[in-house]
């Protein structure tokens, strides 16, 4: 064994890997090499001292201080707040998805034309009663139909976005919860 190999053996020795064959070779080198023997002796003292003075007792009263602070914190809820809110979001998204899935065909069924006709006749009556004026009727109903049309379009696009969002949130909630369980790190 040369000095380089001896250093490797020394490190294994202080790693507490002390298999007898390596140990024999180590000792026979230490017997014949002063430099390595000095290193071995010094490390034995240094690391031995560190290992002997490792555990320190906390001051008395410190435990009580910690518990006092813990007791002033909100009580933990099973799965933690994070898990709870995820569960809440998950079930909420399932409900919303169902509502949206059911309501979309219904919304499509009530055609924009129906609403326009109903709206026009309503405005016609309203303007007839209030003003009895054709020009105002045309003006107002024109405005109303453009407004209603864009409103319907908006409702449709909002519904589509909402549908995607709730599905996304639902998936995220389920996977997020799995991640909380899997992830042991901080």
């Amino acid at each position: 064994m040369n000095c380089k190999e001896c250093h490797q053996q020394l490190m294994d020795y202080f790693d507490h890997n002390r298999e007898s064959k390596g140990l024999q070779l180590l000792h026979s080198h230490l017997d014949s090499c002063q430099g390595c023997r000095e290193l071995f002796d010094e490390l034995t003292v240094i690391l031995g001292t560190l290992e002997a003075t490792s555990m320190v007792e906390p001051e008395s009263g410190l435990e009580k201080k910690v518990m006092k602070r813990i007791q002033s914190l909100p009580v933990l809820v099973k799965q933690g707040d994070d898990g709870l809110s995820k569960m809440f979001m998950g079930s909420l998204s399932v409900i919303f998805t169902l509502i949206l899935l059911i309501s979309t065909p219904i919304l499509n069924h009530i055609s924009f034309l129906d609403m326009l006709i109903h709206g026009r006749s309503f405005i016609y009556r309203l303007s007839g009663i209030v003003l009895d004026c054709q020009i105002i009727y045309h003006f107002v109903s024109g405005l109303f139909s453009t407004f209603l049309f864009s409103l319907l379009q908006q409702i449709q696009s909002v519904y589509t976005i909402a549908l995607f969002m709730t599905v996304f949130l639902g998936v995220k909630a389920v996977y997020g919860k799995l991640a909380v369980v899997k992830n042991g790190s901080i």
Partner: protein
Amino acid sequence: MEPSDSGLIQKCLAGNQDAFAEILSRYKRLIYSVIYNLMGDSQEVNDLFQEVFIRIYKSLHTYNSEYSFATWAAKIATNVCLDRQRQKKFHQVSMEEMVEISDNRENPEDLYLAKEQKHKIRMAVDGLPEKYRVPVVLFHQQGFSYGEMAIILNQPVSIIKNRLYRARLMLRDTLAANREKEAVSR
């Protein structure tokens, strides 16, 4: 039979704060020692001790029972200490702050020499750069294995092993240089 760690954690997560008192009493020595050995400042050790246990309490829901609780808790303690040290950039240990648990069976002179020796070694450890100091503390003072250190430090075993090897040689060189300085000044 004593309740297991994971049993206690489940109780905590169900809102039972008394179960945390039991966890605290099981791990106070380990955590206090990790902080004490990493920090070397007695006032700060008490503050950090409280902070670490509050952090542990708040992140209980992220604990993964695949790991030992000791490793997980030590990881939190190490992170809190290193964050604090990085904020402070440097730290000092003074003679007065060195509170050692003494064994009064030894005679006073031996005790003094042993104390001085301990103090010198401790100063040498404190003087090491962080990446070398932390493995020394975790392995030689806290008795964590390489596998456990890999979890605590989020680094591969090969790197930690290398650093610990270098750290031991650095400690030896520092202490040898100090001895020479003392010999010259006498």
